[in-house]
């Protein structure tokens, strides 16, 4: 055998290590969900399970969760698309700093986000007016007389708390999406007579549709899982600012583990349905393209 020829060692240890590490993490996720399912099956009957979910407070919580998450996701996409595009396509002074600031909601402890929102709205004032008071005045024409519109400890606080975190994830997704679309397409559109806005709407937005869907889904599911900022900024008020994540907390705090597990399983189901639903819709959309 010549000196240049070697016996290549087996790939099995490398592939085995990849598979083992992946399997361990997958088992942890599936194990968690399986444990919830096992506990609910062994600790309550089917009638009891659905009885918990039919409770008027939990029904109100489900409704508020769906509405607030949908609004947060829409708001997140509306904000994330222009920010993502700006970061992807333009160079400007302080871009690195802007980029880092946009990650703050992702890295900050959730309770700190809630506390910061609470202080921003209630403790900081400009010309003697807090943001909470200003928002109350702005909202008052849309509310019946005698009601007390505002943000803190009300539904808008739930949406704002969800949006603050969910939008940061949507921005990351949109930036990656635009990074993957060649600026050449826009340049061709410009040469054909588009201005930047037309090139964006006619060429970039249709090509980034998949990214927009992903950003919206991620924002929706992220918003549903949000708990810390909601607890601090919106409170966990039964029938008023209670969403499914706070329901789990409220049920645990009163010692109703069965209720907490039933709601948790509902959240898991909703998350799976949303993820699969969007993928199916997206596949259909791609097939039509």
């Amino acid at each position, binding site marked *: 055998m010549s000196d240049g020829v070697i016996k290549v060692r087996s790939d099995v240890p490398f592939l085995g290590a990849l598979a083992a590490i992946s399997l361990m993490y997958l088992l942890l996720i599936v194990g968690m969900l399986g444990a919830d399912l096992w506990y609910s099956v062994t600790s309550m009957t089917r009638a009891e399970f659905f009885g918990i979910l039919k409770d008027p407070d939990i029904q109100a919580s489900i409704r508020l969760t769906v509405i607030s998450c949908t609004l947060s996701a829409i708001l997140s996409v509306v904000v994330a698309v222009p920010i993502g595009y700006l970061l992807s396509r333009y160079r400007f002074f302080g871009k690195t700093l802007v980029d880092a600031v946009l990650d703050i909601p992702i890295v900050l402890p959730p309770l700190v986000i809630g506390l910061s929102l609470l202080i921003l709205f209630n403790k900081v004032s400009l010309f003697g007016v807090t943001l909470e008071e200003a928002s109350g005045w702005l909202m008052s024409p849309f509310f019946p007389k005698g009601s007390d519109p505002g943000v803190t400890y009300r539904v808008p606080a739930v949406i704002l708390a969800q949006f603050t975190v969910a939008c940061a994830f949507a921005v990351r997704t949109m930036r990656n999406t635009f990074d993957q679309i060649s600026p050449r397409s826009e340049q*061709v559109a410009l*040469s054909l007579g588009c201005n930047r806005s037309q090139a964006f709407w006619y060429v970039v937005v249709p090509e980034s*549709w998949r990214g927009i869907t992903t950003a919206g889904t991620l924002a929706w599911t992220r918003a549903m899982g949000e708990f810390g900022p909601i607890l601090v900024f919106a409170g966990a008020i039964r029938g008023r600012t209670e969403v499914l994540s706070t329901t789990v907390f409220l049920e645990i705090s009163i010692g109703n583990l069965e209720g907490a597990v039933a709601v948790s399983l509902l959240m898991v189901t909703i998350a799976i349905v949303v993820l699969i639903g969007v993928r199916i819709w997206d596949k259909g959309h791609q097939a039509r*393209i």
Partner: protein
Amino acid sequence: MISIDRLEVEAGEFRLKGISFEVPTGEHGVLMGKTGSGKTTILEAVCGLKKVTGGKIVLMGRNVTGLRAGERGIGFVPQDGTLFSTMTVRDHLAFGPRLRRWGKKEVNERVEELATELGIGELLKRKPFGLSGGERQRVALGRALATRPEVLCLDEPLSALDEGTHEEMVSLIKGLVKDHGMTALHITHSRREAEMMGDVVFLLEGGSVGVEGE
């Protein structure tokens, strides 16, 4: 005529200065240069896609240096065609005319005319996914020609094609430029392509442009 006079362009660290050359009206000018020499930067400056820091670009007697890309009356064909993935071939051909608010009948007539001329009539309902390299370049050419520009800018349009398609496209592009009385600026690194297509061939070397053979 395409007239570039003491052009200065900056792109990050890269800088081109004092670039001058002319392509006479109705001729096919080829700008050759090695990869990274700045030939695409010059083409982008001519198309209005790269900011010019000095000098003058005159197209068919009109100083377009300060004009936006869409106001220069140029048809631009990028390297790999760069088709819009969500649009049909028909939409590509109709894109420019629709932006200029041509009537529906006029747009349809122009699309049919181009489809026949470029031999892509069968592809009108297709989207770019699955089109061959030659078909993609035909669509890109059609999109660029739809509004009847006087100047055609081609950025290495044949570099990704196999030999058979390459020959086919060479005669198609040469024919189109002559038939439509256009003036073309064509970028390539292939000497063979330059010799086959160019009425006048320029060489970009060491930051300056000279006429090949002079």
